[in-house]
C-alpha cells in the first residue's frame, strides 16, 4: 500500500513539473506576443495620427476651394448663398395616387359564368 502511494506521489510530482515547464514557456510566449502586439498598436497609432494629419491637410479649405474651382464644369459648386435656402412647401411633392382601390374590397355577389365554355379543362396532355 505504502509503495503504491510513493509511486503515485512521484508520478504526480513528475506530472506537475511537466505542467509547470510548459506553463512557463507558454507564459513567455504570451508575453512576447503582447510585446509584439503593443509595438504594433503603437505603430498603428503613429500611422493613424499621420493619416489624420494628412486627411486634415488634404481637406484644408484652401485646397477644397481650388479643387471646386478647377472642377467647376463637372460639379458646378458655388459658395453657399442666402438664396439657396428653400422652403419645404416650395418643393413639389409627388401627387397622391389618382385612383386607389378601397382596402376592404369584397365581392358583392359570387362570380358566375354565363354561356358555355369552349375549352373543357383537362389534365391530359395531347401529343401531336
Amino acid at each position, binding site marked *: 500500500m505504502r509503495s503504491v502511494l510513493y509511486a503515485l506521489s512521484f508520478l504526480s510530482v513528475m506530472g506537475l513539473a511537466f505542467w509547470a515547464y510548459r506553463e512557463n514557456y507558454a507564459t513567455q510566449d*504570451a*508575453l512576447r506576443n*503582447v*510585446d509584439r*502586439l*503593443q509595438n504594433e*498598436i503603437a505603430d498603428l*497609432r*503613429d500611422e493613424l*495620427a*499621420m493619416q*489624420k*494629419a*494628412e486627411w*486634415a*491637410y488634404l*481637406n*484644408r*479649405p*484652401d485646397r477644397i*476651394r481650388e479643387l471646386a474651382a478647377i472642377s467647376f464644369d463637372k460639379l458646378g*459648386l*458655388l*459658395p*453657399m*448663398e*442666402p*438664396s*439657396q*435656402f*428653400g*422652403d419645404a412647401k*416650395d*418643393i*413639389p411633392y409627388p401627387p397622391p395616387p389618382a385612383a386607389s382601390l378601397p382596402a376592404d374590397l369584397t365581392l358583392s355577389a359570387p362570380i358566375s359564368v354565363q354561356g358555355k365554355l369552349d375549352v373543357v379543362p383537362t389534365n391530359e396532355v395531347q401529343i401531336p
Partner: protein
Amino acid sequence: MTRIPLRPLARILSARARGENPDTIERENIRLRQKQTHDRARARAQGRLLLLGVAFTMAFTSIGARMGMMAATIPTEPRSANSGAQIEAQRADLTDRNGRILATNILTHSLYAQPKDMVDPARVAHELVGIFPDLDEKQLLARFTDGRSFLWIKKKLSPEQMQQVHDIGDPGLLFGPREMRLYPNGRLAAHVLGGASFGAEGVNSAEVIGTAGVEKALDARLRDPANAGKPVALSLDLTVQATVQEVLEGGMKMMQAKGAAAVLLDVRTGEILSLVSLPDFDPNNRPSPLVKGDPSDSPLFNRAVQGVYELGSTFKIFAAAQALDLGLVNPDSMIDANAPMVWGKFKIKEFENHNYGPLLSVRNMIVKSSNVGAAHLALMIGGVRQQAFLKSLGFFDPTPVELIEAPYAKPLVPSRWPDITTITTAYGHGISASPMHLAAAYATIANGGTLVRPTLLKSDVVENGPRIISPKTSQEAISMLRGVVTEGTASLGDVPGYSVAGKTGTADKPKKGGGYYHDKVVNTFACTFPSTDPKYVLILTLDEPMEIVASQVRRTAGWTAVPVAAEVIRRVAPLLGLRPEVETASATEVTLAHN
C-alpha cells in the same frame, strides 16, 4: 509531576517530636512551590520571546532580500499590462468646434552627428551641403574636426532628406525621433494658434512647447499627460474662418489697406467663431519677430487682439445706450447738435464740417454720426458715470481671451478725465481699445444687456453675465444701429434677409509725436445681425484703406469697411445656418447645393 503536600504528616510528627515548629515546614513548602511556578512561567516567556525573535528575523530578512532583489534588477515595463491606457507624452491636438483638426503632431526625425565615429568628415560635410543648401561646408567641417563628440545638424528632416542622409552611409551621422507640431490648414487661424517649437531636447525625444497664441496660453493643459489623446476644442468654425479670411483678404486688397482684422462673436456664449488678422503667417514656419521698427508691421501682430486703436464713432452707441438706460433721454429726445461746438480752447466739428443741428434726435445722432450730439449726450451723463459704464463694458482691462498676447493688450485710457475727455470719448477719440474689446461690448449690447466675456474655447453653456443695460435699452440701441444701415452712414452694409445693424467708425491715426495724420485712418464697422434677434456680432477693421469712387478718394468706413463686412455677412450667415428673413427665392429658383 507529583504534588508535595504543604504539611506532610510524617515530617510534622517528627518535627513535633523534636519540639520544632511544624509551621516552618509549611512555609518552606510554600516557598518551593512558588519557586517552581515562577521557573515555569519564566521558561515559557523565554520560549515565546525566542519564537517572536525568529519570526521577526525571518520577516525582516525576507523583506530585505526582496528589496535588495528589486533594487538590483533592471527596470522593465510591465509587459502583461493592457495597453488600453495610452502611455504617451504627446501634446494634445487642437480642433475647431466641429472636431476638424487645427493642430496635431507627426513623427519626424532630427539629425545629429558624433564626429568621433565619423569615417570621412570632409566627404560627409560635402554631401550634407548637397542635401541641405543652407548649411555651410567649411563651418560644418570645422565643427566635425574640432574634437567635440556631439553636435546637432538639423532639428527636423523630411522622409526624403532622411533617406538621402542615410545614403551617405557614415556611421557618425545619427537620427533621433522627433514629434513635430503640424498645422494642416497653413495660414488659417495663424494668429489664434500661434505656433510651437522645441523646448528641452534630448537624442531620443524633445519637448514641444507653444510659442504664441492658444498654444502658449493653454500650454499646461495641452502638455498634461492626464489629458493626452483628448483634443482641445476651440470655438472657431473652420469653414467660417476660411470664408472670413478669404473675403477679408479680397477686401483688403481692393481697399488698398495695409492691414485688416475681423472678429465674429456669438452674442449668447461669447464664443469667437472667427478671428482673422491680416497680413498673416504660416504657423508651421513661424517668422522671427522684428528686431527694429514698429512691431505692429510684423505679420505676427494680431490686430484683432493686440492692436489697440481709437475706434472712432463706433463708441457713440455707448453714450446713447447709457443715456437711454439712465432715463435721461428717449430715442426721439432732441439734443443740441449745433456744430461746431466750442469747449474751452477746443473746437468740435462734424465730418466735412457739416452741421446736423441745431437740434437732432438721439436716434438721428447715431444715424448721422454726429460728434457734437454725442458730446452733448456725454456731458449730460457726466464723466464719472461715463467712465464707470465703459469700465463695466471692459474697456479698461485686457480681454480675457485665451491668447498669450491678450493680457498685454491693455487699452490706452486717459489717466485724467476732464470734460474734454468725456466729450472726445463719446465719439471714440482719446481712448484706444482692440477690436476684441469692441466685439465684447457690442455683444453685451446686442444680447439683451448682459456682459459677454469673449472666449476661444468651445462652450455650450450660455452664461449670463452681470446685467449692464436693460433689455429695453438693448432693443432701442439695436433699432438705432439698424437705422444707421437703412438710412445712415452704413447703407452699403445692408444684406437682404439678414437685417444688419451696425455703426461705422473712422478714426485718424495718431502721429508718434502727437497730432493726427489726415490721410491715414483706421476704419471700423461694428455690427450685429440679424437685428430682429441678434445672434452674432462682427467687428471689421481696415488699416489705412482708401477707395477711389468717381475720381474722389474716400477714406470713411462707410465706403471701405462696410461693403467688406456686408460681403462677409452675406457669405458667412448661410454657413452659420441662418435663414434669410425674407423670401429671397421662389420655388423655381431653388438651387441644389452641397456645402
